[in-house]
């Protein structure tokens, strides 16, 4: 983990409620796809944890949904504004167990962390399948970006207004490992339907975001884990749904 000041290079809408922000600064602590950053916002007490969609040597890209005071304030931020950010938080996805045909599954604002993951897996020569779900055609984002990096993308919408109709878990087929991020109901469905090993990224209300406060603990097969520090990615084999809450 590192604390640093980052300059906003881009802050643009992708849909009516989803925004993309590019932050320029030290990215040395970004070591794995699926990690997150924690952003200090003027006038709000707690930082806002947001998953990292992409990073390189100079910049971190986040894609966030405007849902509360923090993200509403972020939406109004301008290019060249600076932000106090903690980077390199969370364990992230392990790409070493993907097999040849990894399946990346995301729903809604759970889709962004899969982007950097897809990039890494494609660069490792894997046949990457991406299965992403949204409510409706107007909610879809990143689908073209996944295609542009060479992933095989399937879009699913609840109302069938674009792509396939229904839920992402109806379309799981021919894969060696599953990587998932999305609402808890979707993750549970992935867990129940998945026939291989899998890594699931969880969300929880956090205090600090770096393992100090025990605000986001959960029970697992291998003991108590902090979603922020020991997660957010948990292996399927260690998840205990009954006692998750």
């Amino acid at each position, binding site marked *: 983990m590192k604390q640093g000041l980052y300059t906003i290079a881009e802050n643009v809408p992708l849909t009516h409620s989803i925004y993309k922000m590019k932050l320029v600064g030290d990215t040395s602590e970004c070591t794995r796809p699926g990690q997150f950053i924690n952003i200090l916002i003027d006038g709000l*007490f707690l930082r806002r944890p947001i998953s990292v969609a992409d990073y390189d040597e100079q910049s971190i890209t986040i894609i966030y949904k405007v849902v509360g005071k923090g993200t509403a304030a972020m939406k109004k931020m301008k290019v060249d504004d600076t932000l106090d950010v903690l980077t390199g938080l969370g364990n992230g996805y392990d790409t070493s167990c993907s097999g040849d045909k990894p399946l990346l599954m995301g729903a809604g604002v759970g889709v962004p962390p899969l982007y950097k993951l897809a990039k890494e897996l494609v660069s490792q020569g894997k046949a990457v399948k991406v299965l992403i779900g949204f409510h409706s055609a107007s909610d879809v984002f990143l689908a073209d970006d996944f295609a542009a990096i060479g992933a095989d993308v399937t879009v699913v919408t609840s109302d069938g207004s674009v792509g396939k109709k229904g839920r992402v878990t109806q379309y799981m087929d021919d894969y060696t490992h599953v990587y998932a991020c999305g609402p808890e109901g979707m993750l549970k469905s992935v867990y129940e339907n998945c026939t291989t090993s899998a890594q699931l990224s969880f969300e929880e209300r956090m205090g*600090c975001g770096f393992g*100090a406060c025990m605000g986001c603990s959960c*029970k697992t097969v291998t003991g108590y884990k902090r979603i922020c520090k020991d997660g957010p990615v948990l292996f399927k084999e260690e998840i205990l749904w009954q006692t998750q809450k």
Partner: protein
Amino acid sequence: MADTKVSLCGIELDNPIIPASGTFGYGYEFAELYDINILGTFSFKGTTLEPRFGNPTPRIAECTAGMINSVGLQNPGVEKVIAEELPKLTRCFNKKVMANVGGFSVEEYVRTAAMLDACDCVGWLEINISCPNVHGGGIAFGTSASAAAQITAAVKKAVRKPVIIKLSPNVTDIAGIAAACEDSGADGVSLINTLLGMRIDIKTRRPVVANRKGGFSGEAVFPVAVRMVNEVAQRVKIPVVGIGGVASAENVIEMMMAGATAVQVGAANLVNPFACRDIIAGLAPTMEKYKINSLKEIIGACV
């Protein structure tokens, strides 16, 4: 040269800054960020006799200038703390540490405190009789002068190291409870623990934290903490450790003028992991600005 040294129950601290229990783990997470030996000391995560998972999640709710937590004393239990956490702690911290003890019965407090008392790295025992997040234990002792006195006397009989009783602000007469602790042999008192609070999600019409209510802390509680530290300092002769909303060197000085010998920093660590480092760096320049040569001189300046 500004003298930041203070003495807490006979142990000298390089400065009065102490990260508060529950906001600093067992130290090693923060040791990855900076050399935590710059701290006066720190109070480690509240430890109970048996392992505890704590309360269901969500456990955190944001508030204006503060937060509510309902963690509920999650900890691996005293045996594992001694076997696994303290060795890791001593690898990154070479000063005496404050052991924070939670419990649900007099006997449990006594047994846990006695086990931690035997650890070389432990300098003080901070007995938490005020955690608002555990049913049936903790706070019941902290809200009654006679129960607080009973715990204090029982723990004092079982340990050799200084005993600091951590007090709840959710009472009508905190000074009376502090005095009862002093009369029963406490070497110090620390205050305030969190204020009971609650937030409701107006969309779902449900409490934000799963346990309904939790402990409110952060900068918003600072004036309440200063007032209570001051009331207690007027009443007792034992050292008072000031806690509550401290986020700057100025806050530290104010808390000491209210009567605190040392000052704990809690919620600020969760927002800025470097909060204590930054406060310590700000102490000497702030002292110079206010023409304070030694922090010892200002303790209780406003009592």
